[in-house]
């Protein structure tokens, strides 16, 4: 349904050219939830902005394609993209308070975003009410009159989800939608998302730092590091049979996986290389404890070493069993 292939994006800055995305491949099959993990600065946001056509002015797509419902989004005009955003692809952002307009009632905002539809106000209102009740807002008819500050954080995020799903998009992009919520509300939101996704048959691209949430919600996982997709596969492959050393380390660092309480939490020593002056070999080589000679000299190719399981590592496949 959405397929990104060999995408390269660069930013021109005073310091030089930042190679923010390099040969990124990603696939979101119809009706599935794909999770994206990776530390800040790994290119997650750049990837999303490329999909929705909102890259900064100093960014340029050097090569690659983003195929959505059969056509390449990168070839489309701004006008054509505007018709896709909000109807076929929509987004839920991290902070529900800043995503909603504080001086307009929820009802006004939900009606406004239906400006494309040639139906009457009463019908638009009815549709808003239906959508609010689908995301579990009690008493939706009277709540439409309320303003964002009159809702709790969890409710605001559900309103943002209701607004994003109102046009029944084919793809929903959710950028860390639960970071501002406590655990009980987080679970509530991800279950709600899963239910809605199943009943509407849409696909979700879900970005999160929280490995537990990814494991619980997603069908496929994409691991990004330093502007590259280093590994992707089914959620079970990634969590049970990780193949890229970065994925393995990332999972080991999750305090949720460490049963014994400890004050010395595992970390990945070192830092992400400068994306202006890239190392000649593998992007993770400096921090990798399995690094061999070839890793410093050659950029590894992405290989599908097992069915539906790709890794960008010279050693991929030879480690999956360990």
């Amino acid at each position, binding site marked *: 349904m959405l397929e990104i292939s060999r995408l390269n994006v660069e930013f021109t800055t005073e310091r030089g050219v930042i190679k923010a995305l390099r040969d990124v491949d990603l696939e979101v099959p119809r009706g599935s939830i794909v999770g994206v*993990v*990776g*530390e*800040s*600065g790994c290119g997650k946001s750049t990837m999303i902005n490329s999909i929705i056509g909102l890259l900064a002015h100093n960014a340029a797509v050097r090569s690659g394609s983003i195929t959505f419902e059969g056509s390449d989004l990168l070839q489309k005009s701004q006008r054509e993209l505007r018709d896709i955003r909000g109807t076929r692809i929509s987004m839920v952002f991290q902070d529900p308070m800043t995503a909603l307009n504080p001086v307009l009632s929820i009802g006004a905002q939900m009606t406004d975003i239906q400006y494309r539809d040639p139906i009457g106000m009463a019908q638009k209102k009815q549709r808003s009410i239906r959508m609010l009740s689908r995301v579990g807002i*009690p008493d939706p008819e009277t709540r439409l009159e309320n303003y964002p500050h*009159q809702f*709790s*954080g*969890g*409710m605001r995020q559900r309103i943002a989800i209701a607004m994003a799903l109102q046009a029944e998009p084919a793809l929903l992009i959710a950028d860390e939608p639960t*970071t*501002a*919520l*406590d*655990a*009980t*509300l*987080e*679970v*509530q939101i*991800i279950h709600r998302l899963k239910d809605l996704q199943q009943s509407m048959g849409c696909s979700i691209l879900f970005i999160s*730092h*929280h*490995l*537990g*949430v*990814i*494991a*619980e919600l997603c069908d496929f996982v994409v691991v990004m590091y330093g502007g590259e997709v280093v590994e992707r596969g089914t*959620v*079970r492959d990634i*969590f*049970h049979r990780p193949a890229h050393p970065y994925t393995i*380390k*990332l*999972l080991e*660092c*999750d*305090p*949720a*996986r*460490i049963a014994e*309480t*400890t*004050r*010395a*939490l*595992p*970390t*990945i020593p070192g*830092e*992400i290389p400068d994306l202006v002056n890239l190392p000649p070999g593998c992007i993770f080589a400096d921090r990798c404890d399995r690094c061999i000679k070839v890793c410093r000299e050659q950029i590894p190719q992405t290989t599908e070493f097992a069915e539906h399981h790709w890794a960008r590592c010279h050693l991929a496949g030879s480690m999956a069993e360990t």
Partner: protein
Amino acid sequence: MKPLLEISDLHVRFRTHSPLSAMMNGIQDPFVDAVNGVSLHIGEGETYGLVGESGSGKTTLARSILGLVQPQQGSIRYAGTELIGMPAAQMKRFRSNVGAMFQDPVGSLSPRMTIGSLLAEPFKIHGLSDRDLGHEATRLLDMVGLNRDFSSRYPHQLSGGQARRVGVARALALNPKLIIADEPTAGLDVSVQGEILNLLGKLQAELGISILVITHNLNVVRHITDRMGIMYFGRVLEQGPTSAIFHQPSHPYTLALLSANPEPDPDAEIDRLELHGEVPSLFNRPGGCEFHPRCPFSDDTCKSAFPDITELDNAHSFRCHHPLQRA
């Protein structure tokens, strides 16, 4: 363990309507209770974790310790000295005893100042400019494991983890005995989160400081805190040793919170206590126990009376009419 900080029966209320508007609209109680009778203490060298959803009063509680909001009732004693009602000038001097790390690491650093001047700022504010501030800045950078070159950089040139380290350095600048860390690792990935928490742990061991951590992240609380408290609607519903609470929670909300924490394993079978219904609004506080509309065990008693504190051994206490059965 000697308590460094003792909070008892603390109330913080915010006015929602002016006296005139309240009179005109017939509002009896134009206040909202952000912190509603909280008592807790933090020992020397201890780490205390405060968890609870957004709006439960965690940050307001922290701000009242720093003297940034004025509590209406109750007492906050730091090393035996009462902070409530302390004159402003004295409060300013006192504040050097408590270091604060705020949410949003980059946002809490002024974008127009270099890291060096940001680190010198606490000394200037507290009238200690006669010290060698350049030397202090390098001392602090060394302490948090940042290269000395960072002195001349600006906040936007830092990564999230580096900005956090600067936050830790600033909090430690005046050798405080207590650090308040509000969401110290929000937005960081697990490896950088580990680095920051390890750094805090190391500094705590070296300097013997106490830490109050406010966070959503239960995995963090489990690993780094000695004791924890669970807040809901401005009250502490349960508190005690972290291991005891994780092992055997007494309050249904605690169990719901702990069991909601997703496991990083797609095949994990989690036995959840699921909560239904909405978090009520602070403006519309439910009677009795505030948790009763969402609680699976609530009955008529819960609707009318807020439960008293039940003390278990080991300074573990909770407030509930129907605590979970203890095995």
